């Protein structure tokens, strides 16, 4: 049976700064290994969002100036439809700025609060010092996945670059525990957030390419949405990804720059 998967790339023309599209390329690649074709639709400001069209929604990060334009559009024009899609259990992957905008508010340096979508029970407070560096997290999310022979599947490798500190409310769970790096806020040892099918992280760029087990979890969940809970993703090896996972340099020290 030839199947296809539909990914929505939110604001791809504005949020394209930190290699976040690597995550979509990973979904396309590993879906392709199973004979699943992936279609990607870019949605930008002023365009209507209809969650029923999509299996996975990707929402990346960008620069502050651009995020301000987006926030308005998200909250006013797409907000209700996005929230409805979340309640239906659609899969979302939100990175950095996208993560923050799904939360309740973003508090600027001067204490000014910017209202966000409030789809997730999290909030973010800006701080001057940017948290930048390679990261390693522990997560049980991907321990049982169709990624066969994944080197240390319980570890996620990433790269963070953010000045916002995010704190989780009662309604959400962290995505992972920080082993190296700062994570959500540099204080409580948590990284990212999960609520229903929404997966949020501060890890930019090549999060999914470096974490094939997580890619497969998202793919399988998306396919279950479409074809029912019995659907199982065919096991596929991660030989190439393991080269990156084994290379110590890719996960060396989480640097913090001024």
């Amino acid at each position, binding site marked *: 049976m030839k199947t296809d998967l539909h990914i929505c790339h939110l604001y791809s023309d504005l949020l394209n*700064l930190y*290699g*976040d599209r690597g995550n979509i*390329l990973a979904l396309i690649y590993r879906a392709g290994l199973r004979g699943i074709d992936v279609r*990607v639709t870019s949605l930008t400001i002023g365009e209507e969002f209809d969650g029923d069209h999509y299996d996975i929604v990707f929402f990346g990060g960008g620069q502050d100036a651009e995020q301000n334009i987006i926030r308005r559009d998200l909250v006013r024009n797409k907000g209700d439809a996005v929230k409805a899609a979340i309640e239906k259990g659609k899969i979302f992957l939100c990175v950095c700025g996208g993560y923050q905008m799904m939360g309740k508010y973003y508090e600027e340096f001067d204490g000014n609060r910017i209202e966000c979508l409030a789809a997730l029970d999290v909030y973010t407070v800006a701080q001057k010092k940017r948290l930048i560096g390679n990261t390693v997290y522990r997560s049980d999310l991907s321990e049982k996945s169709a990624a066969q022979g994944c080197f240390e599947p319980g570890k996620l490798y990433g790269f963070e670059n953010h000045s916002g500190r995010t704190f989780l409310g009662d309604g959400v769970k962290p995505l992972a525990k920080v082993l190296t790096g700062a994570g959500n806020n540099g204080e409580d040892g948590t990284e990212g957030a999960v609520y229903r099918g929404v997966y949020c992280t501060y890890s930019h*760029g090549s999060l999914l*390419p470096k974490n094939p087990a997580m890619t497969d979890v998202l793919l399988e969940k998306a396919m279950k949405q479409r074809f029912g809970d019995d659907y199982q993703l065919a096991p596929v090896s991660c030989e190439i990804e393991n080269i990156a996972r084994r*290379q110590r340099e890719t996960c060396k020290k989480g640097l913090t720059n001024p």
Partner: protein
Amino acid sequence: MKSMRTGTALAAAGAIRFVLRFLGKGATTLPGKIALRISPSFLEEVSRGQNVIMVTGTNGKTTTTHMITEILRKAGYSVGTNVSGANLASGLATTFAEHTEKARRATKKGIPIAYVLETDEAAFAVTAGKINPHVCVVTNLFRDQLDRFGELLYTRSCIEKGLDATGAKILLNADDSMISALRIGREERTEFFGLDEGHMSRNNVTNAEEQGVLSASSDAEYCLKCKKKFEYSARSFGHFGVYFCPSCGDKRQEPNYSAYLSGRTDPSTSGSPMFLTHGDETVETTLSIPGTHNVYNSAAAVGACRIFGREVGDGNLSLSFCAEALSSVRPAFGRTEKISVGNKSFCILLVKNPVGLDRALTHVSEAVDTGGLYLLLNSNIADGTDVSWIWDVDFESRKYPEKTYVSGERFAEMLLRLVYSRAAPKNIRHEEMKRSEALFEEALAACPEGKCLYVLPNYTAMLSLRKYLVRRFHLKNYWK
């Protein structure tokens, strides 16, 4: 008059340079670092009354600086320049210190002196006011080293700060909306360079449809002022083009200095016919360093020399003179350098940010002589520790040679990028950085006769490979 401190600083810098050279080391930053420590006002004093052109921006600094230098040398100037890309304050100070003695001798003979300084954007903010040049050239603004600068607009604010610290004439890239907007409030001292509109591609406002799955990234799709999406009537590459904001009416300025290549040419051949225009005058020359980005660099270099000539009253720097001088410029350090080995050759293209890698992959895809591709990725401080930018580059819609190789400290990330593109060949050979030289030899040996191995390293990977190649092929050392 120079102060005693600066005199001492000059002497110290000279002595350090002598020792480093004696030890066979490049002396591109240390003498200047010491000089600045001895005399904090070193740059102000040594640059006072001098003829100076500063070049800043994300990409093309080195080549533009190199082109300006060659034109001025042909025009009879004794030029001090930081050829090796030592472009922080310490590198600029080294350049002045190094050239002092030559300048003294030249002055005696009545030879004019000029300094052409490639300047890092953050360093530009703090040095432009001290050096107070005649001309500032701003090449472009692309994402680069975001782990260092944080955001693009921060980089832009550095350039802005530098421009406001001087009364210098300003030459801006007309096709780059973010750079062109720097004219505002500085109109009376600003001119523009750009690509000839008639020779840009039409109607490719976004490449989304052509590229199948994902649109390529662009750095400036929206108007800085009113956040509305630009409309383009023509585009060259990246976010460069003839843009128009439907909201505030901001638009691409007509360039005072423009250039274009005639016809479609194979990027691997140098010497394509190029036309340069200033006002009503158009002259023909050849582009000796291939690539559209070098057409921009040429227009910038010619514009800078023309403005400089006007400012210092040098009538020799005419459009035809500059064009003629440009035709014999050889590539700068690591920028499309082609080195012959028997019947084959290798060519180094430095790739330090997304647009650089995009241009290099275009070159490798289009060149008819491609006989191999060797990518090297490091992540030292000078490279930027974040390598995720490679995921923003379009690897998907490229043609790859059958033989493709990867190395560098982050070779695995590059390997993944190639594999995930689903366009690269199977069986990509990969080795760790410590085996990168052996892999180069393997790649060169496998390159067919008459073909060229294209080597695409990022900054520190290039420095290390270059060191090996200098020994292996007896190349000229770059700091000479």
